[in-house]
């Protein structure tokens, strides 16, 4: 009898633990979202701040997929997001060319910058359709891979008339902010640290659909 009670209690605890680490939406099972948007509405940003200059850059050429079990995001989340190196714009055409050149990001040799989810270290439920996820992922830049921590907010919207105004399917909004050190990715330049900061703030604001 005691064993039965223990099993029952553990089952309840397991159910609630799993449930609290996922979305409470209409959709169920494993869902895969693509972030390729031909209209270029998905955007990643980067900011470099030094005493001499502040550089803001954006890229709208985002692609990649993320998949997870809707009820158990913590244990099933996986995927990769990438941008094309050549798509980064900073407001100065000459600087954009420099950025793509071998002395900076070397877009010809390393055409993509990517982030691959490695493991989830924590999930906080902010609402039925909103989770804050702490994860460790592999950031790939300039031919170098480094693991970095990222905190992302995931917002799930079931397909409806409202979501159709953007694109068909269930939608997943992803917001993340994190930092990287350029020097750790083999980017070495004389003006690194003076006109361009070594520490770069990166922002990811993207929406994916499960109908692609």
């Amino acid at each position, binding site marked *: 009898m005691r064993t039965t009670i223990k099993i029952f209690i553990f089952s309840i605890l397991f159910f609630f633990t799993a449930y609290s680490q996922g979305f409470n939406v209409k959709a169920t099972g494993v869902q895969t979202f693509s972030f390729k948007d031909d209209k270029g509405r998905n955007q990643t*940003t980067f900011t470099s701040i030094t005493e001499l200059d502040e550089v803001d850059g*954006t890229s709208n050429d985002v692609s990649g997929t993320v998949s997870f079990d809707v009820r158990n995001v913590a244990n099933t989340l996986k995927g990769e997001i990438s941008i094309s190196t050549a798509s980064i714009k900073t407001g100065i055409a000459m600087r954009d060319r420099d950025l793509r050149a071998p002395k900076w990001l070397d877009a010809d040799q390393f055409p993509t910058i990517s982030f691959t989810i490695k493991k989830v270290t924590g999930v906080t439920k902010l609402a039925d359709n909103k989770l804050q996820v702490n994860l460790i992922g592999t950031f790939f830049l300039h031919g170098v891979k480094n693991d970095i921590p990222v905190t992302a907010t995931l917002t799930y*919207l079931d397909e409806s008339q409202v979501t159709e*105004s953007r694109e068909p399917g269930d*939608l997943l909004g992803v917001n993340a902010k994190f930092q990287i050190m350029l020097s750790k990715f083999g980017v070495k330049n004389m003006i690194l640290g003076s006109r361009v900061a070594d520490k770069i703030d990166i922002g990811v604001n993207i929406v994916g659909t499960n109908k692609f």
Partner: protein
Amino acid sequence: MNKKQKITLFSGLSAIIIAFGVWAFQGFHLFTHDKIEVRLPQSDVDKLLGQPPRYEWVNHFTLGLEYTLAIAAVVIAASTVLLFLFKNKKKAFS
């Protein structure tokens, strides 16, 4: 200082003041930009998805300090040469 020299000095100073005025008016940027970021209107779906406003680069020239200083340097050099030339010409005719 003769009349031509005074005109040269006044024109040179005016050009430098205008260049710095344009630079100041366009935001005191250190480097010249050929595009600016424009905030795009946010859709209701994007708000529901927690997306912040997006930005788009549009063509827009913004004068930076590097060009302003270069313009000032050229104007000072040209004015100096002109002032010198006008001074010599006056002496040659007198």
